[in-house]
């Protein structure tokens, strides 16, 4: 293994990629378009900005605050009792808790905090409510304390998260993009390069097959990570996705890249024509995309299709990414990762053995 040859090959592949508008479209623009489109359709519109108010102080000043807030027309305040379970209410709408020392603190110039309980899955509503509350807090400070900050506010998230469609959807799109770019990329390299005499040419240079395969894998991983990062970035900025990019998710992405590249190599071994290879790739990727729970949860599909899904590698990629990045179910994610990694080792191994530069 010589670093110079491997780096040379990676550099060439990357240049060839970012200058290819079609490749950029499929690896970046297309998944992002899907997210924007479906994310918007299925996320639905916002409820009115209902805020439950839990007044622990029950003082003149706290009543004045509630009155002031009632005057803001878009906010719909609903008082809840002092003993109400904040966490239960917060699953439906945000809860604002006024502390019991609210009035005293203001009169004595001591610091106190309003507490805002939010559901992390309703980030769009949350950001609106957050800005109302911070506006109100500023106003109080200005009126009573000449703008020196006495009243602050803190946010608390209710623990049980509720997941939205977008949380389900984005890991699926990541899985789909890794699958398509790895399968098509591998076919392109193996079939097209053969057709163009490139493999013959490489065979006559000192570049070793192992160096070449390693370089292409590193390149494919780079593409997978670029796609993933772009997709997550859009998810976070547009849909306030709360995804964590942890070790297990990285492991799943790597295993998925190897697995699908291996599938591509195997196809390329048996199909010599570019068009036929593309059709073979479509015949594998399209059904897998729909059957493996990329766009919709498996539960809505007939039970025999649910069984089919469980033999598809993409299912484990999608589920694994969801468990790792969104649901924070480490054990389930690790189990998925192990399934994909095992599959990857087998398929990629077969691919490497079958990859043959020699002509008949």
């Amino acid at each position: 293994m010589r670093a110079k040859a491997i780096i040379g090959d990676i550099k060439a592949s990357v240049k060839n990629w970012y200058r290819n508008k079609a490749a950029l479209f499929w690896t970046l623009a297309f998944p992002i378009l899907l997210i924007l489109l479906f994310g918007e359709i299925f996320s639905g519109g916002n409820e009115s900005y209902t805020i439950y108010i839990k007044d622990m102080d029950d003082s003149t000043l706290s009543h004045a605050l509630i009155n002031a807030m009632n005057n803001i027309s878009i906010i719909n305040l609903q008082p809840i009792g002092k003993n109400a379970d904040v966490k239960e209410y917060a699953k439906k709408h945000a809860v604002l808790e006024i502390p019991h020392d609210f009035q005293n603190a203001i009169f004595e110039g001591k610091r106190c905090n309003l507490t805002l309980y939010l559901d992390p899955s309703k980030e769009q509503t949350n950001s609106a409510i957050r800005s109302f509350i911070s506006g109100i807090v500023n106003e109080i400070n200005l009126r009573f304390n000449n703008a020196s900050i006495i009243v602050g506010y803190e946010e608390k998230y209710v623990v049980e998260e509720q997941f939205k469609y977008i949380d389900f959807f984005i890991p699926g799109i990541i899985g789909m993009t890794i699958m398509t770019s790895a399968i098509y990329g591998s076919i392109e390299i193996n079939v097209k390069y053969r057709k163009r005499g490139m493999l013959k040419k490489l065979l006559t240079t000192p570049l070793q097959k192992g160096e070449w395969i390693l370089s292409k894998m590193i390149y494919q991983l780079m593409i997978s990570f670029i796609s993933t990062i772009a997709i997550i970035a859009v998810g976070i900025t547009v849909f306030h996705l709360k995804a964590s990019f942890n070790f297990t998710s990285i492991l799943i992405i790597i295993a998925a890249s190897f697995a699908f590249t291996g599938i591509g190599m195997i196809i390329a071994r048996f199909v010599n024509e570019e068009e036929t290879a593309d059709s073979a790739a479509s015949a594998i990727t399209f059904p897998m995309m729909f059957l493996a729970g990329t766009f919709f949860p498996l539960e809505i599909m007939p039970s025999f299709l649910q069984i089919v899904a469980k033999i598809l590698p993409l299912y484990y990629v999608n589920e694994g990414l969801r468990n790792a990045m969104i649901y924070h179910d480490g054990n389930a994610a690790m189990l998925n990762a192990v399934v994909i990694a095992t599959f990857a080792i087998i398929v990629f191994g077969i691919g490497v053995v079958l990859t043959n530069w020699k002509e008949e």
Partner: protein
Amino acid sequence: MNVIEVRGLTKVYGNVVAVDNISFDVRKGEVFSLLGPNGAGKTTTVEIIEGIRKPTKGEIKVFGGKVERAKEKIGVLPQEFQSMERLTVRETLEYFSSFYKKSMDIEELIEMVGLTEKKNTLYKNLSGGQKRALGVAIALVNDPSLIFLDEPTTGLDPAARRNLWKAIRKLKEGRKTVFLTTHYMEEAEYLADRVAIMHHGKIIAIDEPYKLIEKYGEKTRVIIKKIDSEEEMEINDEREIAKIIEKLKEKGIKYERIEIKRPTLEDVFLKLTGEGLT
């Protein structure tokens, strides 16, 4: 000294004998050309020597051993080779040079194949001739002492072909050994020190071009076009032409022009096989 030695090489595909028990040597520093029509078995032969295909039978030595051990010292332009679409001329050469220990100066190489003005152009935007010229440059990137060119000018227009010929000629001056396959007899005649004529998988003649012509070609003919008639004669030696002109002068015969028809490798091929080359 022989750079390549081929002994009893045979390649069979199903019931097609693509290469039929051929033996030949390629000497150090020569341009050796395998000339024959499409399907003669040229590509099969050259790709077996390069280690791309396996022979059915026969022994091949490159630099006295296996070609796999000589990869640093050889340069190959496969038939119908296409490089990566979206690399520039210079990037393409840098890419291939990264595989080798030794590398030629890229700028010099670009200059040599006449692509200086195109060095920052993407491969896919080059003309057919420029792509082929780059292919030759790629084959030279490691400053090899043995270069294989499989049909380097097929499909090119005459001007592009001439340019590439000039570049290949320069290799000879650099004392490199060139193994060239072609179905253009002018190409073999212009470039080759020795030509092996291949037909149906067999080498039917092998020698220096002029010797082949001397041996198998018709005689050179001199045609004197007079005002109202023409006279044709065969000569054995081109020095006889001077005598013919002298005689015309002596006799005061008026003529419009004199045509000299020399036999070509095409004629040699025709004579040997009863078929045309293309």
